[in-house]
């Protein structure tokens, strides 16, 4: 039972980071219909940028702020240079442009920062862990959770109460109507990419704090896909819950399943789980039930 609670807590804490990255993914999909396979590389870029800031001696909160700023600019640039021309193109074209971008970004990141594992030193968060009853939690996890939840709240507030957030919601809901009411779809797309870059950057920074940072953090960005499929592709609450559930699932399968089937079950379980969801409930938890029968 202790183990169960322990796994559950850690799963939720890590899952909140996935939720943050998944939120960025869903935003792009919702507003512009782009299925983004470069999410992992966006996490990588953000993580390395904040690592660089931190190693230059900038305090961590400021480094994180700087990462947000860089992510914002990069997001706008990416959308303007590559994605804007693709509005209305076929799914394959759009997906493969994001795949091309992911190769490009990964190559650049590995070229600039190398492929060795780097850590935030000195450690950002205190290393001793906290005891809650019988559960032990590393402070890194706890602070990451706090940061992720804080950012999620900020983003949700942004969508609900600001002019731009409402414009994004309107575009996602009915693009034609939004356009006729004077919402600039181009700016909404640009903003979606900027927010995705920012969310992924923070997510990557937090993940890098937990395990150290190398190119395989980009693989964790791929875990976003099972999360958003589980949540339903175009649902923001779905992305958040999906991210947390995938975090929990990963921890459980790492502990329980790997006794039955040795090997790296932990990395595979989300994808296997995704196939099962796709077979029985392809629209996920809260996605629009608009599945095309074949």
């Amino acid at each position, binding site marked *: 039972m202790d183990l169960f609670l322990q796994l559950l807590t850690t799963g939720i804490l890590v899952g909140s980071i996935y939720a943050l990255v998944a939120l960025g993914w869903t935003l792009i999909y919702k507003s512009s219909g782009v*299925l983004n*396979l470069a999410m992992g590389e966006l996490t990588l870029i953000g993580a390395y940028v904040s690592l660089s800031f931190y190693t230059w001696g900038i305090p961590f909160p400021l480094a994180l702020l700087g990462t947000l700023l860089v992510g914002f600019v990069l997001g706008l640039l990416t959308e303007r240079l*590559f994605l804007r*021309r*693709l509005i209305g*193109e076929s*799914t*394959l*074209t759009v*997906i*493969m*442009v994001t*795949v*091309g*971008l*992911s*190769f*490009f*970004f*990964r*190559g*650049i990141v*590995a*070229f600039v920062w*190398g*492929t060795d594992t780097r850590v935030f030193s000195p450690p950002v968060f205190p290393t001793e862990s906290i005891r809650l009853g019988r559960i032990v939690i590393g402070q890194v996890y706890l602070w990451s959770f706090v940061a992720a939840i804080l950012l999620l709240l900020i983003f949700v507030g942004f969508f609900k109460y600001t002019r731009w957030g409402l414009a994004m919601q309107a575009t996602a809901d009915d693009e034609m109507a939004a356009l006729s009411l004077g919402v600039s779809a181009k700016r909404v797309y640009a903003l979606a990419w900027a927010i995705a870059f920012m969310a992924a950057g923070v997510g990557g920074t937090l993940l890098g704090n937990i395990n150290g940072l190398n190119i395989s953090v980009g693989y964790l960005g791929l875990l976003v*896909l099972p999360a958003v*499929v589980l949540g339903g*592709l175009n649902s923001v609450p779905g992305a958040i819950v999906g991210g947390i559930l995938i975090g929990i699932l990963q921890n459980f399968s790492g502990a329980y399943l790997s006794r039955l089937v*040795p*090997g*790296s*079950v932990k*990395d*595979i379980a989300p*994808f*296997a789980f*995704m*196939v099962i969801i*796709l*077979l029985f409930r*392809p629209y996920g938890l809260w996605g629009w039930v608009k*599945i*095309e*029968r*074949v």
Partner: protein
Amino acid sequence: MYLPSAVYHERSRQDHAWWQTAFVRGKMVLLFLLLLVVIPATASVYLLSVANVIGYTILSAMGVQLLIGYCGQITLGHAAFIAVGAYVSAIAMLQYGTGYPLSLLLAAVAAGLWSVLFGLPSARVKGFYLIMTTMAAQFITVDFLITQYVSQIGGRGHYFSLPPGTITIGPWVIESDVQVYYLMVLLVTLCILGMANLLRTRIGRAWIAIRDNDVAAEAMGVNIVWYKLLAFFVAGALGGVAGAFWISSLFFVSPEHFQFGWSLWIVGVILIGGVGSLHGTVFGAMFITLLLEGLKFVVIPLSEVFPALSEKFLNVKEAAFGLAIVLFLLYEPKGLAYRWEQMKNYFNLWPFSY
């Protein structure tokens, strides 16, 4: 189809022939002379190995071309089936001592069946959801089953190496680069001819109908599920052949060669070459391989100024490939095959091109 003036067909056989005029036949003879005589006689070992990589890329991309370009089923996990082919043929040769032709056949059948297994969801879902399923196929097959379990068979450690003399076709042993090259030319030729002929049969036309409009195809009496699964089988089998060829050119096999990146790579190859075109597969494979090899010659002189360029050449290559895909999709979305057609038309219609 373009025919020069004063060429008339009298029989339907002539109308269906692949090479219809003396000019085209001459061109093909020259092509085969180049492939079978000139290149093996003159090329260095390095150039032969580049040619073998091109051949492997063509074989790998052929199945993807069939699924994406002719049947409209997007797949991002084809490296899984190539890996199945590679491992099945390696195990057949190492554990059971079969000859290369038999192991090739086994590899094709096993990879085809494995591909059908992951093609089954295509009966229920399409578009993005199918893409996710094929991605899952990649991770489940290569990163889990092959890395964790299949690699343990025979206790040879993480990768299987094939000792010299293991790869035999009847009495001949495949060991030198030239022999591998001839094997490559044979397999690529057979695959291209097979595909080209398959695509103009009932089966191929059914696939193209499904690609263009699946509802209309079903209304016309095409059994969609059956033909989709058949497409997955053939594509997987082509992948299996590619995998079996790859181990015969490297003499060892390791899960590292069949990562997710390779799946994406071969999709990029057909996009650059042209989706829905056999020419495109060949052009794309040649373009990408030669571009990245050519990059080497740019980087080596530069590396005296920027040593990082050659130390991290792999990453430079990755970034260049990514940029090439993006630029092609933005500026030449129909691929190289379309450009090739334009060029041919220009010369055919010259000097009155209107």
